Structure formats: C-alpha cells, structure tokens
C-alpha cells in the first residue's frame, strides 16, 4: 500500500512536467493549428535559463593567492563572485542559493521573446501548409536550438541546485500512520507540484475569466467568424504562442534542480508529451492536464519492482500500451472533440 502511495506521489510530479508541456502544446495546436515539435526545446531552453542565471550570479573575478598552488604548481587564482563582492558574502550567497526562483522571473520575458520570435519568424509561414510540413520545420528548429545549446554549454549535464531550505525530503508516511521512511518525498518535488498546479490554474483562469481569454476561446472554436467580427485574432494567437513558450520555459526552470539540464532533455519529454496530448484529446486543455497526470502516475506505478518482475519491460511500454487502449475505446482521446484534425 505504502509503495503504491509513494508511486502515485511520484507520478503527480512526473505528471506535472508532462501536463505543463502538453498544456503549451495544446494551446498552440488549439489556437494556431500548428503541431509544434519544437516545444520540448522550449522546455529545455527554460532549464538553461536557470543555468544561465546561475552563471551570471556566480560571475567572478580572480585574485592571485601566492600562498596556495594550482594543479600545475603555479600560484592559485582565487575566484570571488561579483554579487558577494557587491552585496557582501551573506546577501551574495543568498542570491546564488535562490538562483532558480530568480530564474523563473527572468525566464518570463526571455521565453516570451523566444516564443514571439519563433512564431513571427518561422512558424507563421507554415500556417497554411500541411501538418507534415509543420512537424518537419519545427522538428528541424528543435534540432537547431539543441545544437546551439550544446555549442555553448557542452553535452554534459550541468548541476543547478535548489535553494538550501528545499533540500532533503519530507516523511509522508508518518502523517498517514506508516513507519518512518516508508513514504519520503523531496521538498523540491512538492514545490514543483504546487508550482505546476498554480501555473495550470493560472492558464485556465486566464482563458476562462478574461476578455482576452474569451476572444481566444472564441477564435479556437470558429476563427473565421471572430475575424469577420473585426477582431485581430492573429495578434492574439501570437500572444498565446508566447504564453505557451513561457509555460514550457518556467516548467523547465523549475525542473532544473530535479534533472541537471542537458541539451537533450527537451527531446526526452517531447515524445511523451505528444502521447499525452493525443490521449487527452487533440485541442482539449483539460484533457492534456488529465492525461499528463494519468500517464505520469501509470508510468511510476509500472516501474515498481514487483510489476517489472511480473512483466519485464512494462516500465518502458506502459504509456504506449495505455495510449493504444484509450485510443481504441475513445478514438478522439479522453476529452477530444469532433472535428479536430479530422478535415
């Protein structure tokens, strides 16, 4: 029992990342009708915003300490960060320690710009082309972004620690009456889950309760009529693309302490996120979120040793198996509507 609770907790967390990426994918697909294979790259770029912010905060100058030696036996160059130099060691250390939350704030304008540049610069030219062309061009873009990141940051993962107070883990089991250490969960992952819930709630509230959101929803339902009514729906859709980029980006920033960022992490999540979108139903935002959590939890449960011993390899195929079953029963996905991607 405790093992299953543990894996559900785990799945919520994995599901948060899937749901956040799938949410952005669905926004872009629903508004612009574009299948964006570069969306995983946006998640990865977000993680590298975290890396970059940390690098900026730890920029340092060198002073030579003649009393110590470096690996070649020359006097050691001691590095002091500028933030420590300017704000004093305590405040400087605090800034560096909190680099991930700071990066979330930095990522919002950065990702908005990246999103706008992507949409205005490239994706817009493919609105009238077939989905196959859109997939090819965005997939190509993803590879280009990936290689640029590798050029500047190298191929190895780069550690980005979470703030000190979130290290360590919380003992859930004790709360539920289980023995000590039965169900432990890292604090940062709890933060991630709360953060994801907040972002998802925010996006839904934005679409549901603002005039802007209402127009966008109307545009998603019937683009032509909205245009005839004299509303510049294209501009609003561009902004939605930027919003989707921000969602993917901040999801990446917050994920950096969980998984050391590397240039390939976007691709790792992209394929699964597409499965999530399809299972949830193309174009359905609640469907994407529901399927994200569902598949995250299933994947976690399938990686329990008892199950792997029973069905070897189940941990690697469970998502696809479930996807097949769901699509057989509900060909449009869990919450898919008629007429989406069927023309």
């Amino acid at each position, binding site marked *: 029992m405790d093992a299953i609770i543990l894996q559900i907790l785990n799945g919520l967390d*994995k599901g948060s990342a899937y749901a956040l990426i799938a949410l952005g994918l669905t926004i872009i697909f629903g508004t612009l009708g574009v299948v964006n294979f570069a969306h995983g790259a946006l998640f990865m770029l977000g993680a590298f915003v975290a890396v970059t912010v940390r690098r900026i905060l730890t920029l340092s100058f060198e002073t030579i300490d003649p009393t110590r030696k470096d690996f070649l036996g020359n006097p050691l160059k001691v590095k002091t960060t500028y933030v420590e130099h300017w704000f004093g060691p305590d405040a400087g250390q605090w800034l560096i320690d909190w680099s991930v939350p700071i990066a979330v704030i930095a990522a919002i304008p950065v990702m908005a710009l990246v999103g706008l540049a992507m949409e205005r610069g490239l994706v817009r030219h493919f609105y009238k082309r077939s989905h196959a062309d859109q997939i090819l061009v965005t997939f190509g873009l993803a590879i280009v972004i990936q290689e640029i990141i590798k050029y500047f940051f190298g*191929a190895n993962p780069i550690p980005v620690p979470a703030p000190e107070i979130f290290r360590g883990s919380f003992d859930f089991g004790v709360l539920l009456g289980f023995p000590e250490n039965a169900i432990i969960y890292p604090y940062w992952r709890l933060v991630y889950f709360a953060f994801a819930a907040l972002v998802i709630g925010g996006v839904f509230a934005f679409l549901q309760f603002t005039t802007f959101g209402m127009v966008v929803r109307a545009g998603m339902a019937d683009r032509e009529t909205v245009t005839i009514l004299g509303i510049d729906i294209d501009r609003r859709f561009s902004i939605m693309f930027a919003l989707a980029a921000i969602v993917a980006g901040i999801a990446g920033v917050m994920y950096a302490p969980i998984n*050391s960022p590397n240039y390939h992490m976007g691709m790792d999540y992209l394929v699964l996120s597409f499965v999530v979108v399809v299972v949830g139903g193309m174009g359905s935002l609640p469907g994407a979120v529901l399927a994200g959590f569902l598949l995250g939890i299933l994947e976690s449960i399938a990686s329990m040793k008892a199950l792997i011993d029973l069905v070897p390899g189940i941990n690697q195929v469970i998502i696809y198996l479930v996807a097949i079953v769901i699509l057989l029963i509900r060909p449009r996905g869990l919450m898919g509507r008629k007429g989406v991607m069927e023309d």
Partner: protein
Amino acid sequence: MDTREDIMTKLHLTRRGVIKAGAATGAGLAMPTIFVKGAAAYTNEPKGSEVVFGFNVPQTGAYADEGADELRAYKLAVEHINGEGDGGMLNTFSSKALKGNGVLGKKVTYVTGDTQTKSDAARASARSMIEKDGAIMITGGSSSGVAIAVQSLCQEAGVIFMAALTHSNDTTGKDKKKHGFRHFFNAYMSGAALGPVLAEAYGKDRRAYHLTADYTWGYTQEASMKYFTEKEGWETVATVRTPLGAGDFSSYIAPVLNSGADVLILNHYGRDMVNSLTQAVQFGLRDKIVNGKQFEIVVPLYSRLMAQGAGDAVKGIFGSQNWNWQLQKDDAASRAFVKSFGEKYGFPPSQAAHVAYVQTILYADAVERAGSFHPCAVIEALEGYKFDGLGNGPVEYRAADHQCFKDVLVVRGNENPTSQYDLLEVYAKTPRAKVEYAPDNEFFAGGALGECNPGK
C-alpha cells in the same frame, strides 16, 4: 542546384570511375595472389613518409565532452610522437623505442571520426577512416557497445583497435578480439577493488540495492559488484534495471528506503549517473539511518566530467577510476602528463584523456619495437608486454585476453573541493594482485581472440 552540364560531368566521371574500377578488379582477379600480396602485405601499409592514425570518438551526442577530451589527448600524443612539445610521458615511459621522429621514421598524421556513441555510426566512421583515409589503426570509444562493435570491425578489416573508454567485462571477455587491446580497467576490477574498501568503511553487515543501466556494461557492472560485495558478507536486497536515459529516476529511487536496504549501488554512467545520483541525494537517502546504520550510496565507475555534472551530490561517495590527475602528487609520469596537457589546454586531463594518450603511445611504441606496421607483428609486440611510466605504475598487457593489468584507484567525492577539477580524491590504490583474475574466469568466459588478420 546542379545544372544539367554539372550532372553530365558528374555522370561522366562516375562512369569513367566505374570502368577504371572494373578494369582494376579484373586485373586483380587475373593476377596470382602472390603478386597481390607483395603489392600490399597488409591493410593500409604506409608507403610514403607519413602514417595515418584514426581517432574515433564521440564528437556529438551524450558523451561529446568525453570525446573532446580524448581528442585533445590524441593530438597531444601525436605531437609528442612527432617530436613536438615537451614530450610528456615519453620522458617517463619505460620503453625508449620512440625517438621523437614519428613512428619508424614516418610522421604521424591523423583523421577523426564521430561515433555519436552509437554502434552503427561508430562502425561507419571507422570503416571510412580505414577505407578512404588509409588509417593504419583505430582508437577511441566511449561506451562498451561502441567499443565492441568497432573492435570486431577492426578484426575483420585487419587493423589494430586500441580501445579507450570501455569498462564492460565483455570487451576483453566474451567479445575479445585478436586485434583489440584495452588499457582501461573493467567492471570486475572495479568490484574487486571496491568490495574490500566498502566493507572496511561501511561494515560487513550491509544490505545493498542495485539500480542498473539496462545494457551490456550495466549487467557486467552489477554482476561484479554483487559478487564482490556478497563475498564481503553483504546481502543483495534487489537489482532493478532502469531504461537508458530515463531522465527521472524518482520512481526507481523512491522504493529503496522502504526495501530494507542500507546501501544504494548505482550501476549507471553518463547522464544516467548524474541524474540518478542527484535525485537519490535529493530524496535525502544519505541523511537517513536504516537498520541502525547511516544510509550510503556507491557509484562503481566514476568520471570527473560526470562528477562535475552531479556537483555537490558526489561528496563522500565511493567509486573507482582508471586514472586521476591528482596521482601527480607522487607519480612523475602523471606529473609530466598533467603538465604538458595542462599547459596546452589550461585544465587538468580527465581519465578519458589519459587512456587515449596512453593507448596511442603504446601502439606507436609497439610498432617501433616490432620494426613494422604489420598488424601481426604489432600484436606480437603488445601481447604480454610489460611497461611502466605511463601514470599507472607497472602494467602488463596480458597475452591471453589483451587486457591491461595494473593497480586500480578507489576514489571518493571530495568533501572540500577547491575547484571543479578536484571533486574526486584518491582514497586508495588496490594492488594488481587483488584485482587480477584467470582468463577463463566466469565473468569473462566464452569467446576467443581468434587469429591475426593482415587484411588485404
């Protein structure tokens, strides 16, 4: 866009090429074999004043940083063989056959290939270097899958393969080849070196939980660690295979504490190791007391570049290495290597760089001692060869399986690193006798070296 004329020219050339090739083949077929043999006694026999080495490393993909460091070392080795630079470990190497005038008087040049850490890409680039660029030998590799694939290709092509980063028992076990030579240590040696150290540090009454990368290297690493820790009295609670590149290992790590285990052994490498270790530390495993003992994590195969990825998470964690630049404290050879590498590139070399450099020097030296580039002569010169002064103390290339035998380093994550280069510190040196095994040991049984193949 090609114009019609361009295409015509190309077609024309190709047609002529085909005819020429056809004629040559015809002549070759018509000629008695003995003459053909005289013309080329072995694959890529160097004819001019230069000889080509083929460096087959991952330049893209997950291990590109290891590949880049290997390539730096290969270039340094070529410089030293050709008599440029300060000579590095040639000054400390026990063999004095190399004179700094190339190999057998021929200047060494090189070509590079990109393995992408994929077996098929690695074979294709090795084949291209052998067939198009005339490489007399191939060296490189950063994964056992790749090394084993390229090794068998070199056997068929009739060139020597000097393996660099490959740690699976199979490389010199069931997949060993007459043309393949490995300086790097292996999973068995890691286990043999770590077992006693772990038992001493953490006690003999321990329960271990293994997470293992789901491919050849992971299996041999797991089997070796299991064998040697159980030999010390440890119990193995569970062994769980994790998919390669899983990214998030939380669902594998979460059940560990509840399993009754008090040690977690991570048979992972590369990105997997960075992620699983970071996440295990995040789960707070190392802060827990289980069975009345401090919970511990072990990473059997360490790499400095990986340690950099894991950051603080490596502190205090045991593992093993083939070489570490901090050996320079009491080893003149390591000091010479760190100096020439450090002065050229500005940072200390990794173990990947070390093995790449050493393998190139060993090949060149074997050719010089054999007096010929003929692969059969080179193999003879390397088999059973004993040497010293290349950073690992006395070493022997065992004739029976082409595995180097030497002391193995047990390292530990440094609690107080002064830079990103000393994240690991040398904890102990396990002497060769403790890690040596018979060629027919159960972990290495099966397969055969086969015969020397001079190629065409």
